[in-house]
């Protein structure tokens, strides 16, 4: 936050701001000192905000035409596609928007993993982010159920049945979730309600996420604390706004490519068959963004343990700030971590691939090895690496490596202040 107290220039502005300091907030957001070395991986926060707003706006308009009833849901979606003016466009934006949202969130998460953004003092930002990610998965899953196609129905059946793995009360919980003895109309209507609610919960959490971010300020590619404001920072507006805006435009090109040229490639053809409780599709797969976790679920031969493994794979991320024992944030200065980071990326991609394949033979073996490695990375490699690794020297400031540094801290400080 900027050091100076903000006073609006106009009399009316001052009158209003004394009563509700919105202008102070706006001033904080525009002046907000940002590390000047942020690269394009840092633009995904803004892109994600755009994705959330897009989903809310298109979702609201779809809800004006959609009918949440087991007998009419499938037809009402076809009605949106064929009859409603630009209905096809709005639905394709919404359906592909979910995929784009996850694409952006995975880049955002892996950015954090590479540059150690989850480390002190940013643990709360990270944990709020994990909660947002969990809510995103819940919203995406329930949204996928709404068209009431075959994948909707059987996806809903399989995922809600995960709860039946809980000893003693599992069956009761599943019946309670369904509102019946199988996935049926009561399930559909409550999923619609929750699917409508969750984006607004996410919106609230995004405000907290940004609020928590603005306390310590952004991490940066060098991963050191910067003085704010200083010659290591630039004001958020216009510098970051322009950069975020440019990245968003590039992202929208990719988004538009999917919407206009290949709108169904990320979906499953079986979901254009209306739900049939008597026939399970031969090969049930979740949407691509859930595949790594699906692979973990299937790699464990026991029902309860499989569910526990899948949930742990997500929840383990919340403990990451404490599992990673290294004090150095950025992988740039951690030669070994950098290699393990890319192995983890490959591991998750492999899990995603085998998650889409049948759970048998070689695929199953690969899934088991990759699942074991996933947990090994977080539970063994990260804690040990932080204690053993020989890290490279970290610069004293963002500017130092460019203007030529010195090992002597006092000289460096003097030099900095003379440049200022």
């Amino acid at each position, binding site marked *: 936050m900027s050091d100076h107290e903000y006073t609006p220039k106009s009399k009316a502005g001052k009158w209003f701001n004394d009563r509700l300091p919105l202008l102070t907030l706006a001033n904080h957001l525009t002046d907000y000192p940002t590390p000047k070395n942020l690269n394009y991986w840092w633009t995904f926060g803004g892109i994600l905000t755009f994705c959330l707003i897009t989903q809310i706006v298109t979702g609201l308009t779809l809800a004006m035409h959609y009918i949440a009833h087991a007998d009419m849901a499938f037809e009402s979606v076809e009605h949106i596609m064929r009859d409603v003016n630009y209905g096809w466009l709005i639905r394709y934006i919404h359906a592909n928007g979910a995929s784009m949202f996850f694409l952006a969130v995975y880049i955002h998460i892996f950015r954090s993993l590479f540059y150690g953004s989850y480390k002190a003092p940013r643990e709360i930002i990270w944990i709020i982010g994990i909660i947002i990610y969990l809510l995103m998965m819940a919203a995406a899953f329930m949204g996928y159920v709404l068209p009431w196609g075959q994948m909707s129905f059987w996806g809903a059946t399989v995922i809600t049945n995960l709860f039946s793995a809980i000893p003693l009360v599992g069956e009761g919980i599943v019946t*309670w979730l369904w509102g019946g*003895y199988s996935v049926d109309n009561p399930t559909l209507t409550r999923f619609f309600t929750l699917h409508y609610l969750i984006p607004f919960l996410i919106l609230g959490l995004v405000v907290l996420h940004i609020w928590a971010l603005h306390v310590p300020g952004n991490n940066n590619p060098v991963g050191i604390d910067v003085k704010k404001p200083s010659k290591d920072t630039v004001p958020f507006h216009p510098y970051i706004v322009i950069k975020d805006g440019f990245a968003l435009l590039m992202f929208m090109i990719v988004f538009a490519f999917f919407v206009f040229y290949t709108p169904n490639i990320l979906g499953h053809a079986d979901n254009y068959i209306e739900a049939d409780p008597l026939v399970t599709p*031969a090969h049930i797969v979740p949407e691509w963004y859930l595949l790594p976790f699906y692979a973990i679920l299937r790699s464990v031969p026991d029902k309860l343990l499989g569910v526990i493994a899948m949930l742990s794979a997500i929840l383990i991320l919340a403990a990451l700030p404490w599992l990673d024992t290294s004090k150095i944030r950025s992988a740039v200065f951690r030669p070994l971590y950098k290699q393990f980071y890319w192995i983890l990326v490959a591991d998750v991609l492999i899990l995603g691939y085998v998650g889409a394949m049948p759970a048998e033979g070689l695929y199953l073996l690969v899934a088991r090895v990759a699942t074991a490695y996933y947990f090994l990375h977080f539970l063994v490699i990260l804690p040990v690496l932080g204690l053993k690794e020989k890290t490279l020297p970290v610069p004293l400031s963002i500017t130092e490596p460019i203007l030529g540094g010195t090992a002597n801290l006092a000289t460096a400080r003097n030099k900095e202040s003379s440049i200022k």
Partner: protein
Amino acid sequence: MSEKKTNRRDFLFTATYAVGAVGVGATVWPMIDQMNPDASVKALASTEVDVSSLTPGKTITVLWRGKPVFIRRRTEDEIADARSVKLDDLKDPEKDEDRAKNPEWLVMLGVCTHLGCVPLNDKGDYNGWFCPCHGSHYDTSGRIRKGPAPTNMEVPKYEFVNANTIKIG
């Protein structure tokens, strides 16, 4: 202040919290219970099925409470297969005699006990059912033999109303 004695105020606090908790509980419970199966769902408790058209080796699937029910008229071989298995070989030991009172007829929920998919007929390593979702194999008695499912396919309550009609539920 050194000694903490229970006084009237502590009693009032405790009593207030207790009454408050009961009030919150009484308000929250209807909100939770409304999600349970409602009266109209529960009313669809039983279904009658005409099985006169079934020849040995055929299966029909009917819908009961929104779930598929398999009714299979088993062949002599299948019955012999199912009855010759040693209980020690089973993951969820259950005698075929207990699952099919009338050995010719096997009635069970067509729901995989793993994650609820509908298994396929005449498939799998045990010539019974095979679940395509996550690869569970069931034998000719609908018992789990291989794969992630924890238990045998469930046998619902049913009875023969007459020689040709089964009432499920």
